[in-house]
């Protein structure tokens, strides 16, 4: 069995607020110095899902990442965690793609890989939070897609998936091959040791350019109209009272007044 996991390198969503800068002219986030990019957390969940499949069955896990100037030390973490192969789709034309274009590049790469019984992605990337790419890959490849998985199992050639819904989860069964997008409920990526990191260096890492895929990404389907940091205004009002109870009552009144309650 061969499993492909799409992992995306993004700016650290947990960077200090002061570090978050926008180039409003180019409508881009300025990568901050001193804050390393991370693998999008949902993609780490997706990788973990794949590795769990590998733990159970004799699957080969291929991690796939796309962009320009990708960080090898970061992405090789996938190999350290247990992926068998890392393929970097790295090209200047792969920078700043929208979800649909990304999906078509990733799908092209998956086609080039040849066999993909399961394709995992995160439910959404933690930078733009669109949640489109996984589904769009399925569309491109003509595969069924199950989103927001919290548990995945392969059972007699079928996928059994627990899928998160608003008030619990549902169980879905899907044939192979299929595309599954993974939620954080599935659990975090396993711990990686220094030894894992050094053994990851010996695993295969390939770099494919646009030419290797015989394609160029399609034009964007989304237009970014504006990018800005919302202004946050805070007004602080201290509500006092003689006793805690009185203060609480006053606070409740005040909140009701503002329409919060």
């Amino acid at each position, binding site marked *: 069995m061969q499993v492909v996991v799409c992992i995306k*390198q993004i700016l*650290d969503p947990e*960077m*200090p607020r*002061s*570090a978050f800068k926008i180039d409003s002219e180019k409508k881009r986030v300025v*990568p*901050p*110095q*001193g*804050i*390393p*990019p991370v693998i999008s957390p949902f993609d780490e969940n997706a990788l973990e899902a794949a590795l769990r499949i590998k733990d159970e069955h004799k699957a080969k896990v291929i991690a796939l990442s796309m962009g320009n*100037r*990708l*960080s*090898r*030390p*970061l992405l090789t973490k996938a190999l*350290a965690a247990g992926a068998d192969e890392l393929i970097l789709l790295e090209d200047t034309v792969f920078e700043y793609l929208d979800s649909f274009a990304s999906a078509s590049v990733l799908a092209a790469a998956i086609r080039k890989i040849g066999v993909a019984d399961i394709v995992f992605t995160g439910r959404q990337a933690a930078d733009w939070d669109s949640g489109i790419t996984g589904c769009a890959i399925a569309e491109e490849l003509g595969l069924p897609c199950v989103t927001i998985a919290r548990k995945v199992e392969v059972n007699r050639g079928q996928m059994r998936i627990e899928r998160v819904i608003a008030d619990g989860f549902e169980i879905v069964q899907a044939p192979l091959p299929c595309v599954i997008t993974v939620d954080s409920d599935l659990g975090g990526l396993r711990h990686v040791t*220094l030894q894992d*990191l*050094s053994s990851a260096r010996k695993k295969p890492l390939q770099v494919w350019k646009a030419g290797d895929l015989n394609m160029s990404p399609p034009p964007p389907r989304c237009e970014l109209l504006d990018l800005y940091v919302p202004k946050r205004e805070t007004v602080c009002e201290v509500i006092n009272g003689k006793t805690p109870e009185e203060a609480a009552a006053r606070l409740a009144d005040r909140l009701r007044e503002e329409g919060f309650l």
Partner: protein
Amino acid sequence: MILELKDYVGDMKRCARCSLCKWPPLAQMKSWRFSNNCPSIARYNFHSYSGGGRMALGLALAEGRLDEITDELLNIVYRCTACGACDSSCKYNAELEVLWPIYSTRAHLVGMGYLLPEHSMIIESLRKEDNTMMQPKADRGKWAEGLDVKDLSKGEKAEVVYHAGCLYCYDPELSAIARDTVTLLKEAGVDVGIRGSQETCCGSIAFQLGFQGEFIKFAESNIDDWNAAGVTEVITSCACGFGIMKSVYPLLGKEMKFKVLHITQYLDELIKQGKLKLSRSLSMRVTYHDPCNLGRKSETYVPWKGEEKKVLGQFILREPEKIVHRGWNGIYEPPRNIIRSVPGIHLVEMERIMEYSWCCGAGSGVKQTMNDLALWTASERIEEAKSVGSEAIITACPWCERNFKDAITEAGDNLMVYDIVELVRQAL
């Protein structure tokens, strides 16, 4: 953000490549044997491994002339204790920043995702456990168990907070010194408290390795906590912590309602005031090792922001005038005063001291991730200490002490290593 490579392009462009960064200030050189100042170039020899070499690489990165980030580049950038000796040696002639471009190069690489896995592990530990030692957060306060001292994290109040720092908290051999320190302070009548398990890393290593996002989080939270605790003074016996709190914390623009003091400053004052009386004679010939972070790296860094104007044709005049720190105003006298006040002790100086002191080798994550370099660097210092006939090397930083002890054990040497607090305890 504090570390931006582009802020140092001017400095990097004006590096004269004169190699002054490879030696102690020339007029201070005293012998061939100890004529190196930079562990990194002394150990690896390629020009790249010097302050100047790193400036060249920083400039190449800033100008986009280095596309390929090789492992060797990362070695060059990180096989360096960021001890700042290059910076002091450069500045008496050229007034260029050397150390900060090194930090900024690291931050630049970190921003691009080029990190050493070993460093990621330290940062991960920091993120998850609030310490760089890869130890559980819950164990942080253990060193003080049974010590009758106020715990500010439990709402108790004290004038002064003692910040033990990661190494003292977790290194079983060294944490006795932290206990000694608290005991000493209390004996001298100081109203001191600790933060127990709520104490967190100072962020120094994160900063030095270029993870400034992580650093800012820790620094801001420490400042907030100390402000909230209402202490007037923060005392630390970790020179690394002291260095970062003095030199970099103020750059965050947060009000610091407390003074930061190193234990040597505090003890020096207590001895002068007669609150500590050193009466036991210790007949020993000792030398003192200046920790980089207590010495040249403890001056508050003042980033230059301004305009480079051309006058007299091509003279590049910085307006406003740049403030140049040469490392001359580090904490050099207090530790020496303390040692001298120990009866019977004979303090001899090594060749490389104060702002041109040779690094112990532990700094900037080197001890944790490149111990071979750390031990080699320490062994050079041990040789130097022995060359002046010293029986013991006294220092004022747990990192120096740990590293010297390890190097001595490895070499099977018999030189003693003491923290200055240990010395004072013995002399009481």
